[in-house]
């Protein structure tokens, strides 16, 4: 009986009793969700272009954030540092295409996946050699991103809004919308889908595979930079940031590996869902629910809707 009350009555009574906390959880979940969506977007872009899960995406987030801070510490103004990081990512995308992807055209997806695993460890080693292991503070204030917070009083309590969180949510939504439009309305976007479906067929109709790959890896780098700035500002910038990158995996399963809107919807579902579940139902399960909640939902999707909410349904003719 106590269990039933704990599941069906207590959580809702707490939501009604402390509505400000409930709204705070919704807001925090929304912010986390958009940031998860942003991380997932980096994976989606590479997956759309090559049909492979880019294991190196989380370390790109760390690399972008550390490079940005390092340029700034060298005396380069903050926004010029951003430009330098973008140039660096373009060069990296070109190198990856030249040294790895070009050699692996039309090979098995597992080989491409393993190449991203190798790439990830090469970047980790190189970044630790260059930047060291000491954590740094993100330069978000120097970039003009507002900090501080305000309280919105409600129901005798209040909801706290961090300006950094608001900025993160706004930038994430703008970036996602822009990328969604770019890849759905432009020639490059259509080329991207063709490349993902079949490398050889895409080449035969004149699509430049090399150019597409460089563009996509560069855009994934841009997404990594934005992700690194906002996640780095919320905690600090260290190699531990890469762990958060893998939070995108359940988001991708829910939203679909090939869908830009899916990344944001999946992110929001996970972000809001895990907060609400942890606070109101977590105590029944000994807390720490947030650690596995996302994967539990993802498993449900794998069982009943494996292509995710917005993913392409794969039909193979016999």
């Amino acid at each position, binding site marked *: 009986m106590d269990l039933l009350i704990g599941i069906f009555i207590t959580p809702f009574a707490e939501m009604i009793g402390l509505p400000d906390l409930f709204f705070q959880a919704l807001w*925090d979940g929304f912010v986390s969700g958009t940031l998860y969506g942003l991380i997932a977007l980096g994976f989606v872009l590479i997956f759309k272009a090559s049909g492979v899960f880019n294991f190196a995406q989380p370390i790109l987030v760390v690399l972008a954030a550390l490079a940005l801070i390092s340029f700034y510490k060298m005396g380069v103004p903050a926004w010029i540092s951003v430009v330098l990081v973008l140039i660096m990512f373009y060069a990296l995308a070109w190198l990856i295409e030249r040294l790895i992807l070009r050699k692996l055209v039309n090979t098995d997806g597992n080989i491409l996946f393993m190449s991203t695993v190798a790439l990830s460890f090469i970047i980790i080693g190189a970044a630790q050699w260059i930047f*060291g*292991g000491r*954590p740094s503070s993100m330069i978000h204030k120097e970039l003009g991103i507002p900090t501080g917070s305000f309280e919105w009083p409600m129901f005798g309590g209040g909801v706290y809004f961090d300006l950094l969180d608001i900025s993160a949510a706004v930038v994430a939504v703008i970036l996602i919308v822009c990328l969604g439009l770019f890849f759905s309305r432009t020639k490059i976007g259509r080329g991207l889908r063709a490349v993902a479906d079949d490398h050889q067929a895409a080449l035969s109709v004149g699509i430049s595979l090399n150019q597409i790959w460089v563009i996509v890896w560069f855009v994934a780098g841009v997404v990594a930079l934005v992700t690194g700035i906002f996640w780095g500002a919320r905690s600090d910038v260290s190699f*531990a940031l890469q*762990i958060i990158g893998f939070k995108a995996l359940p988001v991708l399963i829910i939203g679909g590996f090939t869908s830009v809107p899916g990344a944001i919807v999946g992110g929001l579902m996970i972000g809001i869902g895990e907060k609400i579940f942890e606070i109101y139902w977590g105590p029944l399960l000994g807390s*720490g629910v*947030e650690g596995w909640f996302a994967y539990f939902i993802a498993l449900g999707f794998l069982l009943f809707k494996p292509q995710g909410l917005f993913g392409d349904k794969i039909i193979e003719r016999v």
Partner: protein
Amino acid sequence: MKKTIISAFVAISTLITTVGMSFGDLLVPVMTYRVGPFAANGTQNANGFVDYLTMLNERDGGIGGVKIKVEECETGYKAEKGVECYESYRGKNPLVHTPNSTGITLQILAKAPEDKTPILTMGYGLSAAAKGETFPWAFNYPTSYFSQMTSILKYIDSQTGLKDQKIGFIFLESGYGREPIPVLEQLAPKFGFEYFLLPVAGKDAQNQSSHWLTVRKEKPDWMIMWGWGVMNPTAVKAAIKSRYPLDRFVGNWWSAGDVDLGPIGEAGKGYKGATFNATGTDFPAVQDVIKHVVSKGLTKTGSEGPGTVLYNRAMWNAALIAEAIKTAQDITGKKEITGEDMRIGLENFVLDEARLKELGFAGMVAPIVGSCKDHEGAGAAFIQQWDGSKWVKITDAIDPMKDIAQEMLTKAAAQYASNNAGWTTQTCN
């Protein structure tokens, strides 16, 4: 002819390698993690430890005229890597193992009696290892997690009293984080306080908003943290964001380093932490490391390392090992000692005020004496507070609740021994 030259080369190389490994050096391996999510803290730990022993080589020519060979083995703070590191030293006569992780300690603890190499887990590891009669090969000088938790609770008691207080315990979901929970379980009914647990999985260390929403819901009077790595600054930032009063938030000694609060700066003002070593570069031992190691470029740290919480603590860890080596040399009359000799050294060293002054540690740490029965030592901790730019000591040493801690340690040790059939114990006079 060619074959003969190659064979001779191989033979000489093998001989040199074998001689280098087995004789002429005091091999002190140390498990470090300069990579991975805990690298920021692990790097400070590694640097302080290695630099102090390097300083002894540079300044004194080693210990008792024998050079120390410090060998790092990277674990990434992963238990399985730690076991690999441990295995890699079999047959090389390591004097002592320093796992730098409670998870790794738990994995290798049972191997120590078999390999006759002691394990020193300074202020971490299995709390029950404090009972020397049950754990002849494990040491956790100068204090255990059980004792530390009782010291923190004593501090809270001195501030607001413990009765009717609600305490939130946020911890890294691991062997390390769970270690002091039995103390809360036992003391809550005894002192009339209430507590709730907030485990943080390693992968959520940078994403604690749910945990701090729960804190807001539960409205605890005090928060205690057993965190590590990036979990620490994230928790403090989340506490600030949720308007939790930082002067009611106390971290353990692995949750209160410069590396944790430095990036937060002024906003972290008020946060408290336990510790058993002072910070700063004024101590002669730190000055010697700067002079003989850092300024000569024989280190992996920058000038910002020496003097910080974790760097000084790791130096103290290395100094305790060095003192045990010297004690073992004195007792056995041998210069090149073994792990078995080292165990004797760890039970017989005397680091009193006079000896600490001689070593340049006076004022940085409390005196401690090795013992057969008590592998924990004094057990005291003091509380420090972040003033916006540095840690400031705000209490004198707070002794643990010895009667309670000792009773729990004895029980836990007996439990461990009964769970491990044939466990090697010893009798102390």
